[in-house]
């Protein structure tokens, strides 16, 4: 394996002079799943936003595949994000008016690369074969999160960011979802950063870090 896919150096974020986090540095290799623990309000989601280019850090640098995000305008960041990042959210955020297949295909459509085969592959990979024409309101929470995972990986992004992906799930379902996420991330060779306050979720990671106000450290 070559150098780290994701490199973060001395990242800091302040809001109105009040620090959220500081001196965050980490590296994530291709196919590696890194979990970041932290208390509520410590800035885990803010860190993910900074990694995704959705928030401008107050200091530091983020590089993905050797390309720095620093100094890019919003449009460039948006184009970059649609090709290079996949998201899994706590609240699923599956669009209620699209079918399961259409939800999964959304990143491919945004890239102008519709690929029905790939969508079918991901449906099967997450155990939802045959669900393509179903509407989200007919699915359970666990099924919805699997749709979200399929959507996050359908376009083979190098980076997957998961923000409390099991926060709305029962323990058994959460376990299955984390298994799936870890398996798929490794299978696709993506670097995955997972923020969570659940030790059970973090147990699936290759590394577990803890985010605090003064920085990030091994948990």
């Amino acid at each position: 394996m070559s150098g780290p896919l994701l490199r973060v150096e001395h990242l800091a974020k302040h809001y109105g002079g009040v620090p959220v986090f500081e001196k965050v540095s980490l590296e994530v290799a291709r196919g590696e799943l890194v979990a970041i623990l932290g208390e509520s309000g410590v800035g885990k989601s803010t860190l993910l936003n900074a990694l995704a280019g959705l928030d401008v850090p107050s200091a530091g640098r983020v590089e993905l595949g050797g390309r720095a995000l620093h100094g890019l305008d919003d449009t460039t960041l948006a184009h970059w994000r649609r090709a290079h990042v996949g998201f899994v959210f706590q609240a699923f955020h599956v669009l209620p008016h699209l079918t399961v297949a259409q939800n999964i295909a959304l990143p491919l459509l945004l890239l102008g690369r519709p690929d029905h085969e790939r969508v079918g592959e991901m449906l099967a990979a997450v155990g939802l074969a045959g669900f393509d024409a179903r509407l989200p309101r007919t699915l359970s929470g666990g099924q919805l999160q699997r749709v979200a995972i399929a959507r996050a990986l359908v376009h083979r992004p190098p980076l997957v960011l998961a923000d409390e992906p099991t926060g709305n799930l029962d323990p058994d379902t959460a376990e299955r979802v984390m298994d799936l996420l870890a398996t798929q991330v490794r299978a696709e060779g993506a670097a995955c950063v997972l923020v969570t306050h659940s030790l059970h979720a973090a147990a699936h990671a290759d590394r577990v870090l803890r985010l605090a106000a003064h920085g990030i450290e091994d948990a």
Partner: protein
Amino acid sequence: MGTAPGIRTAALLRTLTLPEWRAHPLRQALALLAVALGVALAFSVHLINQSALAEFSAAVRAANGEPDAALVCAQRDGCDDALVDALAAEPAVTLASPVVEIDSYAVGRDGPRVPLKLIGIDALQVAAVAPALLPHPADGADRTAFIDPDAVFLNASAQQRLGVAPGGTLRVQHGLATVSLRVAGHVAAGGAALAVMDIAGAQTHFGFDGRLTRIDLRLAEGARADALRPLPPDWTLAEADDAAQRVANVSRAYRVNLTVLALVALFVGAFLVFSVLALSVAQRTPGLALLGVLGLSAAERGRLVIAECALLGIVGSAVGVAAGTLLAKAALRWLAGDLGGGYFPGVAPALAFSWPGALVFAALGTMAALVGGWLPAQRAASLAPAQALKGLGGTQHTGKAAWRGPALLVAGALLALAPPIAGLPLAAYASVALLLVGGIACVPALVAALLARAGTTTSPLALLALQRARHERDAATVAVAGVAASLALAVALTVMVASFRDGVSRWLDQVLPADLYVRTAASSVASDQAFLPPEFIGAVSALPGVARVEASRNRALVLDPTRPAVTLFARPLADPARSLPLLGPPLAPTALPGVYISEAMATLYDLRPGSTLALPLAAAPVTVQVLGIWRDYARQFGTVAIDDQRYRQLSGDTRVNDLALWLAPGAPIDEVQRALRTLAGEPSLLEFVATTQLRVLSLAIFDRSFAVTYYLQAVAIAIGLAGIAASFSAQVLARRREFGLLVHLGLTRAQIIGVVAGEGAAWTAAGALAGLALGLTVAVVLVHVVNPQSFHWTMELLLPWGRLATLAAAVLLAGSATAAISARAAASHDAVAAVKEDW
């Protein structure tokens, strides 16, 4: 056990609704403003109408006094005054007060003529029946001035308009000359310019020797006026309220039309309330769902939304009543009491505020808000709590109500065929309302049909928009319906006014064939005193540059004491088909004198070609036969056209009021006018107008009388567009999580704005098409039913496509721009954070 529903609703209002309103003050302010604006418009029109009518009626009553009964002469030239002595001998009569009522013009200090009603009275008797007409000599004036035949007493309006004070001279027109009278004091009667003088002086100066126009009676206790019958043939018995009733009837159609138009503003306001509340409910769906899960029943959720509407309605109506009062005060000051309609000339009434009226319009405003909120309340009641909590609940489209729209349209079409009720197009108004509501109720089906035809797409942005619209049809329906409603009203009014204006313009071309028109009486009311003598007409015919002169006489005829007077129009009618805008070929003349009546006369008096009627042209009524019907846009209450030679034979009346002059080719019109002024001797007693100028003037009067319509049209569009803005803004707010997700997935800000703006443009375009179709349908009813039933004239339907296209384009542009502006907020940084929201 448990709190009463009302108490719980009040608690929910306090704990849930008020904080939500505080969090979104602009949205609620918009709904409140819509109700307030609708109520303000409707109430102000009502107040203006009532104030003007009250003032005018009071003035009429002051001028007519309050007798127990009155005998009115059918001839405006008066009837034999010997009847007074006969009445004085009647046991049923305790007082017979003779009156000569003359309508003419007074020449003011600054020159221009002012319409003046001159009343000749017996000052020793008038106080008992019409105290407002009692002359009050000025300080220092002779105490017996009230029996001086050359003295006159002015009311406040006459003094102010004429600029003549006690001691000054008033010149009153008689024929083409003036009678000089000395101003000796004042009278208390209000209203338009009025003068009172001794009856003998009025009879002598104005050609009423031995004649009266009215006798006011005080009856003995227990006596009835019927005891005086039979009356001489040229006298009629008038009830005390006949004059006031006639005044009310003159303006009734105009007042009702204005009020209906103002109520339309209330309807549009209700729609805005619906738009705001529909989307407020949509945005609060998770919260309402949580309440449902925690135990708030469907009925209670519905009651909460209804209570919110009621609160909005009450507060908005209160604001509206206050604003409407101020608006009415300003309008009465700047636009007089008839808002340009010309029904209350010379009246600048004070505001007559009415608490019952205020309560009625406040109730209407609250009802409008409740009507607007009914459907959102149903939605709040019917949502599925479990689904909605997951953010997956949408409203179910069962299609159960799909029949309502077409049913309402059919009902509206059938009502348009109904006849007037109490002389007003009430069924037609109901038809317009049902057509509008029915058309809007068809919008969901229209939206569904458009979506069904849209097919599939691989474009992600189009896919997002289409799929959203297919599954969240209500939001699209609200947007389309809002555009359709506001544009429909604007289109209907534009077509109606354009049709009417075009009709008037073409009518003017036919009824104004001459080059120059000269008149001395501006209306038939004063035409008996302001007339042109025969020698003047002969002299005009001989003027250089004048090729042909046509003289005409117009006078008022009272055929029914409870109805406004009709106008008799005597002019050369050798070829009536050429001279009059006839509707169909005329009948051949018969032994009876033939007349041609206007559409209004035919409708009001139930006449048709071949009918006969009795006209009070002479001492005894003359039976005439209707030979044809013509279109007359100048006189709303009926016109009878008769050949001038025949008229003179029947009536002995040789007076002429108007001259139509055809000039020789190349004759300078200014020089002819100068020569006419020289001939007249007193130039201020004549009015000249070239045909082109008359056309411009007539159309300007038309535009002025429709000024309020244009204003209401603008308000309807403004309220509609505000509703669209609220609709799109709230939709965008409700979709923040969706937009946040799209930002995460890599959509650019411009693309998100494009998606929303594109949706906005698409739905606005659909709404514009629907509004255009609906507006044209309503216009047909306005042109072919409401107008004829209100004003008794017909017109051809004209479709001003250029103006309609401009309206539609303006609405499309405004709707798209509004959506784009709303979308900018959607693509903001806050949208990114929205994905963290629990729902």
